[in-house]
């Protein structure tokens, strides 16, 4: 088991190194940071000095060495735009992204499971057909379009919900800010969470529907029926429980991508999270923010995958045998 964990961690480190290399290579093509940091009529002498002080004149390999060295020391530097430490900027933005992602994931899980179960049990009802159609929309429409449609409908035309921002937030402790505790904070969360969770919701719904239909055909369900158990207890006590194992795996893995893909939702709803910070950093060639964000997302995926692998080991005895080998 220990050898397995060590092997997996070593692999994870390799993945992180690859992310660092790719990120660094990308920065060489996004443009010149210096021209974004000063006005266009800045004397060239000053521009040259700035370039030198940022180490942009050093050979690529030296720059990469410095980049990796700083990452290893958890030093992500100072944002070119804001002149503030990147770790501080990301830490301030992280609660917004995480609250949005978790809300979206919970929304996707609950609504997805309910709709999936309903569709599996009442396959031919008109409501099931409506759900199926909605799920097709969720899969095929791009996130930014859904977001803008929701904004125009619920914020501009109906005026029920805010179109952007986080509403009133409450500070908890040193680093965390939450929108869960205020009315405007909760209202502000609704549209972006639906937008972000819609794709995952349809995915979960389709998965639950297929799994459930599969399970309903198995012998033990037939036996349960033959024993005269209540339909309710067959559906939810036996069938659903067995359906949920793959669903939870998928949902867990998807949490990483919800956080990573929050970029678009955050931009559309002007949600002050890490994603919008990253997007603006790309536009302004703010390399320190881009680097830190990419490393963070890479790290997140690696950790989630590692956790899932380890959890499999705990759950499935066959894998435990393989691990020992």
């Amino acid at each position, binding site marked *: 088991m220990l050898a397995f964990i060590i092997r997996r961690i070593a692999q994870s480190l390799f993945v992180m190194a690859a992310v660092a290399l790719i990120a660094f290579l990308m920065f060489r093509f996004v443009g010149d940071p210096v021209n974004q940091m000063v006005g*266009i009529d800045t004397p*060239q002498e000053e521009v040259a000095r700035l370039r030198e002080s940022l180490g942009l004149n050093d050979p690529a390999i030296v720059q990469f060495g410095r980049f990796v060295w700083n990452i290893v020391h958890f030093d992500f530097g100072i944002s070119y735009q804001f002149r503030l430490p990147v770790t501080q900027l990301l830490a301030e933005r992280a609660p917004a992204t995480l609250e949005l992602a978790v809300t979206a994931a919970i929304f996707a899980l609950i609504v997805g499971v309910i709709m999936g179960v309903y569709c599996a049990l009442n396959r031919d009802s008109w409501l099931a057909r409506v759900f199926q159609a909605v799920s097709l929309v969720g899969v095929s429409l791009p996130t930014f379009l859904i977001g803008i449609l929701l904004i125009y409908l619920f914020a501009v035309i109906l005026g029920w919900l805010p179109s952007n921002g986080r509403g009133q937030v409450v500070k908890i402790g040193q680093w965390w800010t939450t929108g869960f505790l205020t009315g405007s904070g909760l209202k502000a969360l609704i549209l972006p969470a639906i937008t972000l969770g819609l794709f995952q919701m349809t995915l979960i719904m389709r998965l639950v529907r297929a799994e459930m239909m599969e399970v309903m055909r198995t012998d033990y369900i037939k036996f349960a029926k033959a024993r005269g158990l209540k339909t309710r207890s067959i559906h939810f006590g036996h069938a659903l429980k067995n359906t949920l194992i793959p669903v939870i795996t998928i949902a867990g893995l998807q949490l990483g991508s919800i956080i990573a893909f929050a970029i678009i939702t955050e931009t559309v709803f*002007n949600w002050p999270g890490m994603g919008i910070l990253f997007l603006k950093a790309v536009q302004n060639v703010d390399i320190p923010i881009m680097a830190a964000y990419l490393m963070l997302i890479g790290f997140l995926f690696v950790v989630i995958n590692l956790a899932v692998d380890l959890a499999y080991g705990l759950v499935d005895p066959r894998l435990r045998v393989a691990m020992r080998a």
Partner: protein
Amino acid sequence: MTIRKFLLAAGAALAIQAVVVPAQAVTLRYANQGDLKSLDPYTLNETTANAHLGHVYEGLTSRGKDLKVGPGLAEKWEVLDGAKKWRFHLRKNVKFQNGEPFTADDVIFSAERVRATGSNFQTRVPKDAKFVKVDDYTVDVELSSPNPIMVAQWDTWYIISKKWAEANNSTAPTPASATTPSYISLHANGTGPFSIESHQPGVKTVFKVNKGWWGKKEHNLDEIIFTPIPNAATRVAALLSGEVDVIEPVPVQDIPRVNSSADSKVLAGPELRTIFLGFDQSRDELLESNVKGKNPFKDVRVRHAFNIAIDKEAIKRSVMRGLSTPSALMIAPTLFTYSKDFKNPKFDSAAAKKLLADAGYPNGFEVGMDCPNDRYVNDAQICQAVVGMLARIGVKVNLNAQPKAQYFAKVLKSGGYKTSFFLLGWTPGTFDSHNVLNDLHGCRTENSPIGETNLGGYCNKKVDELTAKILVEADPKKRDLLIKEAYEITTGEYAYVPLHQQALSWGVKMNVNLVQRADNSVLLYWATKK
């Protein structure tokens, strides 16, 4: 006390309170596409940042609603010794927001700080200017050569408190390569009409009215909440849904939508920025062209042909949806007295074709064009229109429309001016022609700041001589005539193709009244909200 009595009493108390509470504080909510990145007023010289910080900080001079220079922290000044010595009389009884008085020491400190390494405003104050404290409220500035337009940009050279900066370890401007954040990029202490209550970079900034301000209040606001909303559709939606009161800019395609709503409108007007096309006239062979061994743009007939082959009215009509002012000059007409004497050359593709043939290109030629796609209003679309128009005279343009980060890296001096044909926009920071002639038309030479943004390398010694004279000429009439002479040469040689001044477009709620200044500064200390 029974519960019922208690409730009644509480209800009565609430009712009384509701009557006593004064009229609600007036809050103006404003969204811009860009961030307020640093509160250090010497970090980034950019119109939006300068306008934001102009609510908090003030310069020795100010610019009014019509952009005229007026007194600011200096009540008045005298130009002595043929513009080689300036004497500034500072306003008395002015206090910084932390309560310290404003004196000559702060001016001298700010003059040093603004010229220090890491400042993006070094050119605001001439390098050779010596600041001498005469008394607490009088400062002399001594120059080695006359400079009649020295104060042209001093309205955005903001004065910082010496004591405060020193106490907070912020005597030097925050350099880009800093490893520790500076206090001053997160905190502000100016003399202006508003103070900053909270600032979360890139998320939200709250300005509170400064009750102790020295000037006469021209607004009725208690608070300004600024949020950056980079996405245009979201910004417009926020205005339409009433979550913000003012947005800048409104994309041209959304203007009818905003105007058709019941409670918001678009304020539009000509901006000072001139959008133009430029040619590489310095290389002997163009970098991106099929013409080898010579540079077609060195021939004035080719530049002339390009000037008359591009239909500026059509660009205004179809690309800019009517929101631009076609331009014959490289400066906005309001900034130069004799603008009316310059007319746009008539659009005529047949004549353009003939000029090309005379120059030895009867079948046209091929050239690469660089164009930003996220910098100016509809920039990439303008370039596409130009490509189509030039195709009619046989010139095949290979358009490279790219994000500004890559565009500027390629075409500016730091990138080696690697362009053959380009689109650029320019607002003279001084609102004066000298800047246009010096920066865009001056001959490029090694180790000289003259002509640094003259990307095409246009060069005429006569123009340089005139530019040098214009700098030191103190008589405004004579100066204008010199400028006119210079422009006659540059337009006669078709140094550039000026296209238009793009339009300002701000979205405002009907109940908000504000002043739209032509330099696109959103200054809410002139705003009232009903």
